[in-house]
């Protein structure tokens, strides 16, 4: 494992190498080398299985971290390849030629995060969200609560009290700490 990591560091400039557990190491690679690196891991290092591909929205840093989870069946090791891209309309290199299911993931990421993968088949097709008219819903700024408050009503007559506030009002309205 260390040899491989050293080589990846040298050849692809990967960094942020973290051993999450004996069977899982994650690292970060620049967007431009990502596809080549993943291809090499698949073809030369035995990481033939794409467990999944997903995205984490780090809205506070303005980035999407794409995660490619690769698995080596012989060594029973997994690699989590992290690729940071800008949240603002940045394209990502497609890996649909590497695994048959990759385009599905990319289509989903397009729908849920708004990430573009040029060349990926059927990218513009709806995946889960037929007729969706809001921002891509997995982005952190999409507020599910607000969305449902707007579209759905509440049952009439519901009202809840906080024990502490209720007791103050009922039992000692003039005591306790003054208003903050």
């Amino acid at each position, binding site marked *: 494992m260390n040899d491989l990591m050293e080589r990846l560091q040298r050849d692809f400039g990967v960094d942020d190498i973290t051993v999450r557990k004996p069977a899982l190491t994650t690292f970060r690679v620049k967007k431009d080398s990502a596809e080549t690196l993943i291809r090499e891991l698949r073809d030369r290092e035995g990481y033939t299985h794409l467990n999944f591909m997903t995205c984490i929205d780090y809205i506070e840093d303005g980035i999407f971290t794409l995660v490619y989870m690769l698995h080596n069946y012989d060594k029973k090791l997994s690699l989590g390849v992290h690729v940071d891209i800008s949240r603002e309309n940045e394209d990502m290199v497609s890996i649909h030629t590497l695994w048959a299911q990759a385009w599905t993931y990319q289509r989903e990421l397009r729908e849920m995060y708004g990430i573009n993968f040029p060349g990926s088949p059927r990218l513009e097709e709806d995946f889960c969200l037929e007729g969706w008219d809001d921002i891509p819903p997995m982005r952190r700024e999409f507020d599910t609560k607000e969305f449902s408050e707007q579209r759905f009503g509440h049952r009439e007559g519901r009202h809840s009290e906080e024990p502490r506030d*209720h007791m103050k009002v009922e039992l000692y309205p003039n005591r*306790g700490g003054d208003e903050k």
Partner: protein
Amino acid sequence: MNLKDLLSPFFVWQRAFEKPYTSIRPTIDRPGAPAYRGFHINIADTCVGCGSCHEICQNHAIDMVAVEEYLGREGDSGLRPRFDYGRCCWCGLCVDICTAASLRMSNEYAWISEDPTVFHFTAGVDDKPWQDNENGYRRAEGYHLYPPKRIEMEMLPANESVSSFEEVVKGYSEEQAKKEADRCVECGICVATCPAHMDVPDYIHSIRDGNYEKGLQLMYRTNPFPATCGRICTRRCESVCPVGILGEPVAIRWLKRLIVDQVDASDYQRILADTITENGKKIAVIGAGPGGMSAAYYLRKKGYAVTVFEAQESAGGMLRYGVPSYRLPDNDLDKDIDYIVSLGVEIKYNTAIGKDIKFEQLLENYDAVFMSTGLSVPSSMRIHGEDHPRVLSGLQVLADVANGRDPGIGKKVAVIGGGNVAMDAARVSRRFDAEVTILYRRRISEMPADEEEIHESQEEGCRIVQQAIPVEIVSADSEQQVAIRWGEAEMVDDPKGGRPRPVLQEDRMHTDTYDSIISAIGQGSNLDYISKEMHEEFAIEWGKFTPGEYQHTTLEKVFVGGDFANSTADAISAIEDGHHAARGIDRYLNPAAYEEK
């Protein structure tokens, strides 16, 4: 295609004679499994309305609604959970988190109505057919969603503590405190019970965040004696903590102490940032105990010039002269007092009202007066021979020790009483190497003293004789000694339902000789500084005031608080009295500010 494969499927006919899987409804009723998660049951009398079920419900299916009959019960918010079955997913987390184990589920799962709005009910309050169902899901023994046991407090071992005045309770480390703070369910029921209504859940939260400055600010909102209360508070909050119903209550007192211990006194000014705008009015406070100093603090913050008159040479009252330093070290008490003084509160020490200055003078010279002189006169045992020189008062012994004087108790001591003063006097005596026997009229379980104090005094070697009634003090052979005649008591149930009464058993009398007998059965007030006429005007009964709203007395300018004006007679009540009187005085002197509200 082979013949076998063609014939084999005909085997299905064999099954035609087997018992069918299905059962016919409604002929055959099929109840849920004994632990089925069906409709909710709440034992409303056991429930305390802490709202943890509401808190944990991921569907917002539970509302806490007021149920009149439970409002005002001690340690009960008066709220009960109301379920919206349009949202419930029957996960049962509400049952798992229930601090009182009052919430459970029945194995009933059919509720049919044509009206979709009816599936909304207050469990245990609204009448439902499954309320008495004996089956259904409940939290399994050994399964907890919060730690039921408290983080153990490190104490000085009894063999060490008994020979020094070093503080016995060592205090939590930051890490321990974080863990203990984690146990809080943030219901806030304790806030109602705390006489000062401290923001307990909030400052506990600040411990979890490691933000002690915030914690200190929160505590000073309602209590300018956090270092003191963090050590010796009677902590009624803990007695109502819902976490304590099934486990041990959150150690609120020790957590309060941790916050103070983490902040250096020199940072108080910066953190609390109490800015004072003088309003030109003068207030006199009589007594620099917790009540007086609390009033002084909150009045000073409102811009009043406050002068505190204290008969002793130091401030603190009972906290200094009545609480031994192994429970409350002087420098911790000083931390609280010094900050109040630093805001410009003036204390006139060694100034007794009625002797050095007349009470009437204060009324004349100040815009308002707050009296908080507490209970300083030991109560009499009302038995023959009580005035024997070897009969000492607990208060006197404690005051002597606080002042650095030898209390002169000898080596064999009997302490009479079961309150905190008795325990303190006993434990102090142990530190002067005396062999200590505590005589108490009732059973140990009925002692008014703090349970921990009783336990620690026993640890330190004090012998407690329960159900022992003193009958007479008699002279001993030596002048340095005294004897006490006491009898064993039987507890007799009160036919009216009150607590059992000890009845002296004349045939089981004992006489023991001691070097001294320390009487600590209670104390009364000393109101000699008020004239007879005024006594009547104040309507003082049994040496106690009955103040009105905002601690106001019948005299226009005078407000009272502390032990002689409340029934609980503890530091935290005195602090609240002081705080509340400060509000009252401000309302009295500055009514315009309150008119709109």
